[in-house]
């Protein structure tokens, strides 16, 4: 649905030239939440601002839904932009307008008649969970509520794409989660394609289907979020994964843990998608005559399922334990069994 080819943006400053975005190729599918992650200065903001030409590219081509954004005239671009929603780190609401009037603004720009505007705004206020706050001014809202207004405003003209520039970076962790949930909700309800940029892997993990890692203006690694979490290739990516998972090298070695148990078996379970940890452990405990004792581990939920590792100590009859392990092996969970010296 979105295809980007050879996108380049060079800033000319007095002293030198900065290649903020460097020959970037990217494809985004319809209805997916696509995350772009990178450290400060990687060119993320420049990239997303090129998408609706808040910044004009030095070269390259952007297609959104068969429309070549990079070839549009100023007037055509204005019309096209009504179909591309955008939300911002600092919300960028008009403080002189109420919540209702802020959300109505893009509808005024699109020339929607007043009666229809009011109806549409009321729908949107409900959609983002701000019922009853329509007459409040932005200064009377919390950060999370302001971002909800920003989201409602971005959705007003039923856009095809939603661009999010660090939409949660100014919010506390809890509010971040509620805004991310809202984005997922909208993505599912409306089938909206979302491109979001962030420097927090947590955001990618929680809501993105696919991710691209940016460094020095280039996409250096991309793929399904789960794959990237499982097999990060480059050092940058590994560091981002560690943000969420902790350093894997520092996990206690399986065999070392095993030493401290004289009976039963210690296993390491690798979760990759689909099944959630709680379900499988309790199933095993119910179906087999073993005691399952979770020792340590880290599981993280992504849009495509759980990912992580868990150390479990099984105690009971040797044969029962073996059955339990066989059972787990038959699911998508990978099992490693610790050995005694």
């Amino acid at each position, binding site marked *: 649905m979105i295809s980007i080819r050879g996108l380049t943006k060079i800033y000319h400053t007095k002293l030198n030239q900065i290649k903020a975005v460097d020959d970037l190729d990217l494809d985004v599918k319809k209805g997916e939440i696509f995350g772009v992650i990178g450290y400060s200065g990687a060119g993320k903001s420049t990239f997303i601002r090129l998408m609706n030409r808040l910044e004009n590219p030095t070269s390259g081509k952007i297609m959104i839904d068969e429309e070549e954004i990079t070839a549009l005239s100023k007037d055509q671009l204005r019309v096209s932009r009504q179909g591309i929603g955008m939300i911002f780190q600092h919300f960028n609401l008009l403080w002189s307008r109420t919540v209702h009037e802020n959300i109505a603004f893009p509808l005024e*720009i699109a020339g929607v008649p007043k009666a229809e505007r009011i109806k549409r705004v009321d729908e949107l206020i409900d959609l983002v969970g701000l019922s009853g706050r329509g007459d409040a001014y932005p200064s009377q809202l919390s950060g999370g509520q302001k971002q909800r207004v920003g989201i409602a405003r971005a959705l007003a003209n039923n856009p095809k794409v939603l661009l999010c520039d660090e939409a949660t970076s100014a919010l506390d962790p809890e509010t971040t989660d509620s805004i991310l949930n809202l984005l997922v909700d909208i993505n599912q309800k409306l089938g909206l394609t979302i491109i979001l940029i962030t420097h927090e892997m947590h955001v990618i993990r929680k809501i993105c289907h696919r991710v691209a890692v940016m460094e020095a203006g280039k996409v250096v690694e991309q793929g399904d979020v789960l794959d990237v979490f499982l097999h990060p290739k480059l050092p940058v990516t590994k560091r981002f994964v560690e943000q969420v998972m902790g350093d894997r090298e520092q996990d206690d070695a399986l065999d070392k843990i095993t030493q401290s148990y004289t009976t039963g078996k210690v296993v390491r379970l690798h979760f990759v998608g689909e099944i959630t940890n709680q379900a499988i452990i309790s199933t095993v405990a119910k179906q087999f005559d073993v005691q399952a004792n979770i020792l340590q581990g880290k599981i993280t939920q992504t849009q495509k399922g759980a990912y992580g590792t868990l150390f479990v100590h099984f105690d009971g009859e040797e044969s029962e334990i073996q059955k339990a392990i066989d059972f787990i092996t038959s699911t998508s969970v990978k099992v490693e069994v610790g050995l005694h010296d």
Partner: protein
Amino acid sequence: MIKQLFPNANWNELWIASYETLYMTIISLVGTFVLGILLGLLLYLTTKNGIWENKILHVIVSATVNILRAIPFIILIILLLPFTDFLVGSIRGPNAALPALIIGAAPFYGRLVEVSLREVDKGVIEAASAMGAKTRTIIFKVLLPESMPGLVSNLTVTGIALIGYTAIAGVIGAGGLGDFAYYYGFQRRATDVVFICTVLIVLIVFIFQFTGDWITNKLDKR
């Protein structure tokens, strides 16, 4: 009692003079508002990286504004006499003071408008362009409403300066309290009249300040 305190006061004429002062101030303030907003917008929009970036226009407007602001008001009135005569058909009376008042105050207000516009959050303007807003929409629905408290409080400052200017305009026989005080007080040594005129002018200034502050507070939703 009042008769004894202010033996020279002619209350009917004082009332007319107050009315003339208010008339000159309010009409010239309306003119200053319109012209000042225009100048301020031009300065803001044509500036470097502005929406209508235009170096030549910016320099021309900026220089005009600076020159007009540099001319002392009393000299501006005299310089403008032929222009006033042409425009108003007379160089005496409250109406004859209006061109000089507006041309004297608009550049001052224009600079203040420019400053207020600069304070509008760049992100909000960007959000509006990301929604596909035309420049006209950005001006009338973003820039002006978002800077309105600043525009009004600066208009209050300008209005108070204008009250002072109307008194100076008395020298060309514009009428008003300044003219009145000059005529009776300076030429006839009637100190009591000067005193009354002063009180009335101060009163008008206070009313302007109070009204301006009140409107600014009402508008400010930040």
